[in-house]
């Protein structure tokens, strides 16, 4: 039995062990090994993806039902590993230029990946908490990765304090749910809630959800995101905006469906509020931003709101739509960050102002073209692929008789369209600002082209396979948990 359990968590084991080995390498070889360690970490992430249970079969649970290696977890982990690997490659190119690539970076990312894997696989509230904290600890350090930069240190501290508060809320919620239902296992919690929601259970649910909402930076728990996004080094921000977002979203989906499925009517109101508040605030607050990273932070708040619309449906289609949304969102936002990584002045110093993008279409036409694709895609304008995830979440909402929610949410998408087309305007209509220094980084160039192709109209060809995978993943939640 133990062997079986260990087999189910094999990807996590591989990642954790590799992380420890790399840490030893780091201790002996120092920062000289940064590049090698990064590539090794990428290889490990790829290898771990091949060891995932739940692809092609139904997967299984481990440790007396506290950990699920099912198709849902498998789908989320594939995306998480891919995003983590891509972020590592981007970071290697960005840091490495100045010789400041610290060897701890791949180690921390690997540990974060382990934490995220546990988050999406957790079928017990305590497993969930352990995964969450493992991820958080790695992320705190990553946010403050540039020790000599006060903004980075500030970002790390801010993230730590607020995130610790959120973790406290989660723990308090867990304790209430445990106290009133008598178990921390998702299935047993659901059974305990089946006879109606008592006040204590409701409070537990509210605290749990509030704490988890912090992790996806949904309004009103979003305040940390702009500061952390701006303060952290850009490749780290790109990582924050991708894998942890999906991990937290998948975790919330699993908790809500498997643990609190019987209380759907209760949490739906909260999700709807967060969804609409996020789409509106993420749209309005972004308009005044002058820093591209802050703008992308508000864009992530905005996009999380749309993903929550699918979750509000509370149906298998809705959960599949959330996974679909987050997957495409990750590619879009990562692509946008890859462009931001290339924004450097002639001295090689990174620039983050939106004003510096002015006239990019004339100085660097292909870079501007790529950014335009990502911006229109984030705005959800067809024929770019960013339209489709919005389509599937609204479709799920309409199918769940939440047509009004879809109508309101889609109307708020017009607000956010404004600032995305503002970026396009800056790049294409304005007079050129001083040109960026040329970047020679073939790896990120290939990644950026791949991301651009994925969100271009060619991405529509991926609807079939992606829909198939997300549907299978979402269905597992409802068959095991419901």
């Amino acid at each position, binding site marked *: 039995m133990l062997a079986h359990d260990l087999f189910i968590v094999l990807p996590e084991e591989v990642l954790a062990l590799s992380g420890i080995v790399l840490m030893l390498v780091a201790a002996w070889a120092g920062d000289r090994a940064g590049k090698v360690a990064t590539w090794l970490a990428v290889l490990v992430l790829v290898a771990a993806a091949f060891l995932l249970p739940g692809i092609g079969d139904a997967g299984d649970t481990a440790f007396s039902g506290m950990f699920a290696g099912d198709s849902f977890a498998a789908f989320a982990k594939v995306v998480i590993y891919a995003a983590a690997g891509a972020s590592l490659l981007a970071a290697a190119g960005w840091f490495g230029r100045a010789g400041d690539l610290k060897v701890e970076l791949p180690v921390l990312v690997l540990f974060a990946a382990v934490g995220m894997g546990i988050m999406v696989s957790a079928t017990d509230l305590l497993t969930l908490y352990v995964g969450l904290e493992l991820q958080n600890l790695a992320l705190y350090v990553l946010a403050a990765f540039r020790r000599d930069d006060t903004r980075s240190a500030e970002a790390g501290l801010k993230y730590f304090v607020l995130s610790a508060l959120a973790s406290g809320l989660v723990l308090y919620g867990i304790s209430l749910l445990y106290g009133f239902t008598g178990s921390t296992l998702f299935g047993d919690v659901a059974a305990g809630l089946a006879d109606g929601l008592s006040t204590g259970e409701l409070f537990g649910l509210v605290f749990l959800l509030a704490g988890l909402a912090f992790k996806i930076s949904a309004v009103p728990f979003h305040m940390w995101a702009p500061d952390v996004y701006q303060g952290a080094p850009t490749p780290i921000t790109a990582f924050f905006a991708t894998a942890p977002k999906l991990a937290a979203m998948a975790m919330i989906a699993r908790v809500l469906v498997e643990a609190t499925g019987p209380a759907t009517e209760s949490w739906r109101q909260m999700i709807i509020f967060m969804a609409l508040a996020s789409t509106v605030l993420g749209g309005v607050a972004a308009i005044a931003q002058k820093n591209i990273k802050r703008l992308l932070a508000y864009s992530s708040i905005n996009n999380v709101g749309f993903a929550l619309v699918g979750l509000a449906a509370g149906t298998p289609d809705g959960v599949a739509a959330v996974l679909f949304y987050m997957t495409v969102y990750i590619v879009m936002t990562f692509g946008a960050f890859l462009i931001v990584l290339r924004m450097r002045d002639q001295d090689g110093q990174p620039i983050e102002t939106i004003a510096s993008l002015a006239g990019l279409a004339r100085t660097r036409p292909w870079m501007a073209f790529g950014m335009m694709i990502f911006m229109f895609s984030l705005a959800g304008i067809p*024929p770019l692929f960013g339209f489709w995830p919005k*389509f599937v979440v609204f*479709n799920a909402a309409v199918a769940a008789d939440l047509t009004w929610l879809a*109508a309101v949410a889609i109307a708020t998408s017009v607000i956010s*369209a404004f600032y995305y*087309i503002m970026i*396009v305007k800056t790049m294409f209509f304005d007079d050129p600002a001083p040109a960026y220094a040329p970047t020679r980084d073939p790896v990120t160039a290939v990644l950026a082209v791949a991301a651009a192709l994925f969100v271009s109209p060619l991405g529509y060809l991926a609807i079939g396979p*992606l829909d198939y995978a997300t549907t299978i993943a979402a269905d597992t939640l409802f068959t095991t948990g419901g």
Partner: protein
Amino acid sequence: MAGFPILSVILALPVIGAVACLLTNAKGARWVALITTLVTFALCIGLWLNFEVGGPQWQFAENVPIFGRYFAWALGIDGIALMLIMLTAFLMPICIAASWEAILNRVPEYMACFLVMETLMLGVFMAQDIFLFYVLFESTLVPMYLIIGIWGGADRIYAAYKFFLYTLLGSVLMLVAMLWMVNYAHTTSIPELLVTDFPPEAQTLLFLAFLASFAVKLPMWPVHTWLPDAHVQAPTAGSVILAGVLLKLGGYGFVRFSLPMFPDASAQLHWLMLGLAMVAVVYTSLVALVQEDMKKLIAYSSVAHMAFVTAGVFSFSPQGIDGALIVMLSHGLVSGALFLIVGVVYDRMHTREIAKYGGLANNMPGYALVFMLFTMASVGLPGTSGFVGEFLALVGSYQASSWAALVLTTGIILGAAYMLLLYWQMAFGTARTSEAAAMPDLSWREWAMFAPIAAVVLWMGVYPESFLAPMRDDVAVLVERIASSAPAGDAQVTPGHPAPSAAAAHEGEGTH
């Protein structure tokens, strides 16, 4: 032709041309764009020649389910779509020619935008899947935003934003309505949705959601305010495409979606549609009368002409719908030509202010002649395309409401007033500035632009049967679909009893 995906080929051509444009220099891009649009036009002529009038409703159909369970690459055309496709393909080479010397910077991008635009517009008319339609319909925003924003006039950024956000807000509500419809009917195929009976209480909301999109696109009063801004700021060819084809998407939407899919709601709200059309005709005509900017004047006249489309469509009569469709085609040609007319003098003087010109008949006789023809077509003089469409639309709307017909007719009088005033101020008298007196007449390139449009305008005015014939059966199907819910008109028209003539049987064959 069976099995050959001719529609996909037509859609693919301009995209390939666009990529080729991006990879060449300015000169190469111009020629690539011109040749691509001409070949596309030639293929569309082939489409028309092979279109079987009186044959199956949907022809050249293709259906490839490559987009998972949500929607399919389904194409197919009926007569209505065919005519609008012809209009689009016909105007595109002219647009490219109009930009030949007017656009000097970033030519490859410009040409690429136009070619992408062509694919999207043709695709909208060909789409047989409701979501494919939406995707293409909405996609037109992107290239048009760039065209207005990059190559537009002084106030182009404001105009580009306004155009983008206005039309986006309009169409997102339509998407929610489409989602609801598909969830109700369990099909995304437009031909199947056309025969689905939606519950009457839902129809009203659905109708209003579609109206939000099409009314902005058409544009109807009071959501027309983006149009004058966008028109004035867009480059000449951009205005031609906006007026010539993009506005037609709204009218096409009414005919393809609003009316046949929600007949009950259309009947309930037809007073609203006729009312808005009446206001639009009188109000925008009066506004056009006092414009000092030529492009603005023509933009407002577009709103007035589009009101005839609204009135014709929501008259529920075959004449009205025929008329609306002909007005769309005719307006596409005439307003496109009028924007080109403005473009000709704008290229020479770089001002659109009417007061700066005058007496052009003296030094530009050829220009004055062409200008007069299109002025008359815009006014609706018999013998030009404008007359046929407006007359039929008025006949149709008279059956629905005699008051509507009365008010709409005053629009024709006002239309004559502002167009003749414009022509008088531009062409007659003496030049108000020395530059205006020194302008050279049309070049051979400009003649080549105007001659085909003029020919088609006269053709449509003298023998509209060529254009009505392909659409006749489709309009008949549409009228039959809405007949049961058609509101009773106040005019109580009774058909007369004409003596049967031998010629009548002959006429129906017509050309195709």
